[in-house]
């Protein structure tokens, strides 16, 4: 297996002919088996938004009489090959009016479709049909999507529409409390989510430590969260994939939109560079400068901003180019003594090319980086750390025949890790400049994914991904006795850092360690009736990067570390089954899913592990396991004046680090313990009600089991310091969490013909002002010397007003 994968890697540097022909040969077997004597023709095209010219992702293109269909890909492209004949094609997607088009198919046909509200101008017959007709029959399960409109409707704290906060209302998605960064999917850790913005990896999804997320909702076109059944084109993280595409820019008209909120203001400009051929988009968002000012009685500055840019150019029918970029920064400073700044930057170049009406390709060159910087003047240093990667991807969608599609491609990512660099920040500082050992790695993957309709009722998606990871040499590489960087003290029963026996410098291009893994994926759907289907899936994934974090939720200064000689890649097996149905004449949909997942080699930290500025992180890491299982319900109402959903998840998320041998006890006595984000019950209710043309009301209610925590089993003191001590990990819980949020959107009457549109959003977060516990801490009161338990709550009732506009 290793040999094969290495040849792929070398291929990556050489020509592309080899793999392409190899893959195609492989496919020919399948294709010829499916060949029919009847004349076949291909319908292909691109689906766009009528008003803006934006391509639309995930539009269902169905041919009801054949019970066949296809979904537009990430670039709006679709292709389907059918026997000669006359068909009716139905184009539908969430938020757009459904269109039907009749085609007399006797040769290859290109049908580009523009969907919109304004359908009168078109010849197509408009029907009102449910928007998710195809979803129940596709083998893809465990996926949620949200439209930008829904994200904007959901009431959030301080009125700042937020992608991740909206995702938290879906089943299987939670986080470690208000103000916690990132999100947890099906009991997975924050660093197990692959977050892609225009296919580029975002390493930290949070602004201001976790109060807001880094995505400007105005700039987002499409968003999908894969919680399981992850297609083979994705890899590198074991829990979920959040795949976000930015808008391309309006190729028909200049448009401006924006908003003024309690926290930040936004402005987005888009328009054609050359009508219908090239467009640009530039969006900025910035918060006000002193967000935390009221919290301290001392001068402080805290703000964030982000910038989204995109240019697209449609060269001809077969070729399109995209350039996109994102840049975001957070800044937090207290006087001049403490200055903290961090953020993501991504840049990518993509080239869409249709080799034929059946073979779509996309080549991406992506650069992504995460930077963290800290200046501590009272100690006298500046600290910088970060991660960067260069990613080359070549993906193909091959629409072989009516019931058979292939997706294949290869990906190569080169990583550079800077765990930290310290320099004196002023001449009189005693700090000596130092660079913690930089690390380098390369991850290559190739994948093949087959979507196959075995019969109109039985459909399957079979995928295989081969991944290959190389950890390169570094300047200081430490060797330990018995290859064990962590030793166990059999008398004190604690794990400790081992002393290295040798430190050597390993040449940059030498391999310290190589891993190769196969990651099979399988998804099957069986449609019982027009309204009910059942699905099952199996997913295997490998994760080679780990975020070093042992706080309840990651902090901006946490660094990523690659797998290598001492840290193994995480390996996931996830099994899911589900039932998907429409109720009451398709007014409602109900999804029920059960899952079980198991992660091998989930890193765990020894008690008291120090992760900050640690140059030998292997000395505090042990190899553990994680598991999670649960049941998810999602009842959605997608039509009418009242829309919304009820999401309920019953789940368990645990981890365990067993002893390595009989003379150890493992972490937590080797027993399973709750992860810090384990929430057995998680209920979210979201509703939106359109009262009239002017007023729309929105509301959320959330109920969750309190997060696991530790209550002390006693206290001791040492040299006057009073210290609580604890039993096993995460055995207690915080009180249950619940709150209600409401918002109302007011759209002032538009003057006829006026382009300017605006709306006011009035929101109330935590309406009944519940003091939910974010933590309970045990400490000695500094003034009275008496021990106390202190409950920290983050947000009580928070009212906010936001003004949005577009023209």
């Amino acid at each position: 297996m290793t040999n094969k994968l290495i040849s792929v890697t070398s291929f990556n540097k050489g020509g592309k002919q080899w793999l392409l022909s190899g893959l195609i040969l492989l496919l020919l077997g399948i294709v010829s088996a499916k060949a029919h004597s009847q004349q076949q023709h291909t319908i292909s095209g691109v689906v766009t938004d009528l008003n803006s010219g934006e391509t639309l992702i995930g539009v269902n293109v169905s041919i009801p009489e054949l019970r066949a269909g296809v979904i537009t890909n990430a670039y709006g492209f679709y292709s389907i090959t059918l026997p000669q004949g006359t068909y009716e094609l139905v184009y539908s997607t969430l938020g757009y009016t459904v269109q039907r088009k009749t085609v007399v198919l006797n040769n290859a046909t290109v049908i580009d479709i523009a969907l919109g509200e304004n359908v009168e101008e078109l010849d197509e017959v408009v029907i009102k049909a449910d928007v998710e007709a195809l979803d129940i029959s596709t083998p893809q399960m465990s996926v949620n999507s949200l439209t930008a409109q829904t994200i904007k409707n959901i009431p959030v704290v301080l009125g700042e529409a937020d992608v991740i906060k909206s995702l938290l209302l879906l089943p299987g998605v939670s986080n470690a409390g208000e103000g916690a960064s990132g999100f947890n999917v099906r009991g997975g850790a924050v660093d197990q989510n692959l977050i892609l913005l225009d296919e580029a990896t975002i390493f930290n999804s949070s602004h201001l430590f976790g109060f807001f997320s880094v995505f400007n909702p105005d700039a987002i076109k499409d968003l999908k969260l894969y919680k399981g059944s992850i297609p083979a084109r994705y890899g590198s993280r074991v829990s979920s994939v959040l795949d976000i595409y930015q808008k391309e820019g309006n190729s028909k008209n200049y448009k401006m939109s924006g908003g003024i909120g309690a926290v930040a203001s936004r402005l987005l400009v888009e328009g054609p560079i050359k009508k219908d051929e090239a467009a640009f988009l530039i969006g900025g968002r910035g918060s006000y400068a002193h967000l935390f000012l009221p919290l301290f009685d001392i001068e402080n500055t805290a703000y964030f901003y982000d910038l989204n840019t995109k240019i697209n150019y449609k060269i001809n029918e077969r070729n399109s180019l995209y350039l996109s970029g994102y840049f975001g920064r957070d800044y937090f400073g207290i006087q001049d003594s403490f200055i903290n700044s961090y953020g993501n930057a991504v840049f990518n170049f993509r080239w869409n090319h249709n080799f034929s009406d059946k073979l779509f390709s996309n080549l991406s060159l992506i650069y992504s980086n995460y930077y963290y910087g800290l200046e501590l003047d009272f100690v006298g240093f500046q600290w910088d750390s970060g991660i960067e990667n260069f990613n080359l991807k070549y993906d193909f969608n091959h629409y072989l025949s009516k019931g058979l599609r292939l997706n294949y491609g290869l990906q190569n990512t080169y990583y550079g890790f800077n765990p930290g660099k310290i320099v004196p920040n002023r001449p009189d500082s005693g700090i000596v400049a130092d660079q913690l050992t930089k690390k380098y790695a390369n991850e290559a993957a190739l994948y093949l994914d087959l979507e196959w309709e075995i019969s109109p009722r039985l459909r399957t998606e079979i995928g295989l991904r081969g991944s290959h990871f190389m950890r390169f040499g570094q300047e200081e590489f430490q060797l330990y006795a018995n290859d064990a960087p962590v030793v166990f003290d059999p008398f004190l029963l604690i794990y400790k850092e081992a002393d290295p026996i040798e430190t050597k410098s390993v040449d940059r291009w030498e391999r310290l360690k190589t891993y190769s893994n196969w990651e099979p994926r399988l998804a099957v759907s069986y449609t019982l009736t027009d309204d009910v289907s059942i699905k099952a899936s199996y997913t295997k994934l490998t994760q080679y990067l780990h975020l070093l974090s042992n706080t309840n939720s990651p902090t901006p200064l946490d660094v990523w570390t690659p797998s290598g000689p001492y840290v193994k890649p995480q390996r996931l097996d996830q099994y899911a089954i589900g039932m998907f149905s429409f109720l009451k004449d398709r007014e409602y949909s109900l999804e029920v899913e059960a899952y079980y997942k198991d992660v091998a080699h989930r890193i765990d930290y020894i008690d008291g592990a120090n992760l900050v500025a640690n140059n030998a992180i292997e000395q505090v890491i042990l190899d553990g396991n994680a598991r999670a299982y649960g049941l998810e319900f999602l009842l959605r109402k997608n039509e009418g004046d009242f829309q919304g959903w009820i999401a309920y998840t019953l789940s368990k998320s645990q981890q365990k680090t067993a002893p390595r041998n009989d003379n150890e006890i493992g972490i937590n006595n080797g027993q399973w313990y709750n992860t810090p984000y384990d929430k057995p019950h998680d209920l979210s209710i979201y509703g939106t009600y359109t009262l009239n043309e002017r007023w729309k009301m929105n509301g959320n209610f959330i109920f969750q089991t309190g997060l696991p925590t530790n209550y002390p089993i006693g206290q001791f003191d040492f040299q006057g310091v009073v210290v609580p001590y604890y039993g096993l990990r995460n055995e207690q819980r915080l009180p249950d969490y619940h709150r209600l949020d409401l918002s109302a959107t007011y759209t002032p009457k538009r003057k006829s013909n006026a382009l300017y549109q605006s709306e006011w959003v009035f929101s109330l977060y935590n309406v009944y002002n519940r003091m939910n516990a974010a933590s309970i801490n045990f400490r000695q009161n500094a003034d009275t010397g008496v021990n106390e338990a202190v409950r920290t709550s983050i947000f009580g009732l928070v009212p906010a007003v936001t003004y949005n506009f577009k023209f």
Partner: protein
Amino acid sequence: MKRLIFLLSIISLVWSSCQEVITVELPDQEPKLIVDALIRIDTTQFTTLVTVQMRQTSDFFGEITPVSVDQITMSNLDNPGNNTNQVLLETEPGSGIYQQIFSTQQLAGDRWFLQIDYQGELYVAESRMQYSVPIDQLTIGDGSLFSEESTELLVRYTDIGDRQDYYLFDYGNGDFFASEDVFYDGQEFEFSYFYDQEFNTGDTLTVSIMGINRDFFNYMNLLREQSEGRGGPFASPAVSVRGNLINATDIDNNNNYNNVNNPDNYALGYFALVQEYRKSVVVE
């Protein structure tokens, strides 16, 4: 700074805006022995009075109380015999304070073994004195970090180059700070400490610097971290801060070589011999 602890504390402050003292019911636990045996050695003195305090743990809202143990001895592992095995004596019955006078030269140069017999259990620990460096200068600054009602104290000292050093600073009132020299090896180094209060003119501030080893450095960092009871999503996980006292009761090196089957029966605290330098400054 191995630990940018400052930073985490600062971030957590953001979450401290909505705090309320609440009542919580806590799990019950048998009391454990606490051994407070930080032996600070002034190497300019001929003899050193060694003081060890014995207490027992309590429920978090209870009271930590002194206990008398059956016997405490300290013995010299490098030079056994020679009257170096000494029993520490309780100053007052029930006080839990045990003392004995030792030769500074022997304390400073040799490995020492502490042995405590208590309620049929035997607790042992070992230590060798770590050298420190003197404080070159102590200055009161005018900076502040979180609140105007704080006092900045700048400590300047000169690290010895080409070796790993760990220091423990005692600012009084249970305020400790542990530091390692990774980023200032061999340098004259100064950093600020912020007291949470303002002092009056004429008040004396005393700081001591102690030399410690890596294990004790980790211990003190953890102790400090766990005692702060910080909140928020970035708080470090709660752990029991385990010191270096081994429950050796069942270890006979014949049938039983470890405590793997006895994980809950341990004593808290630390036995460490450290060289200490002190310096004071008067508030003007």
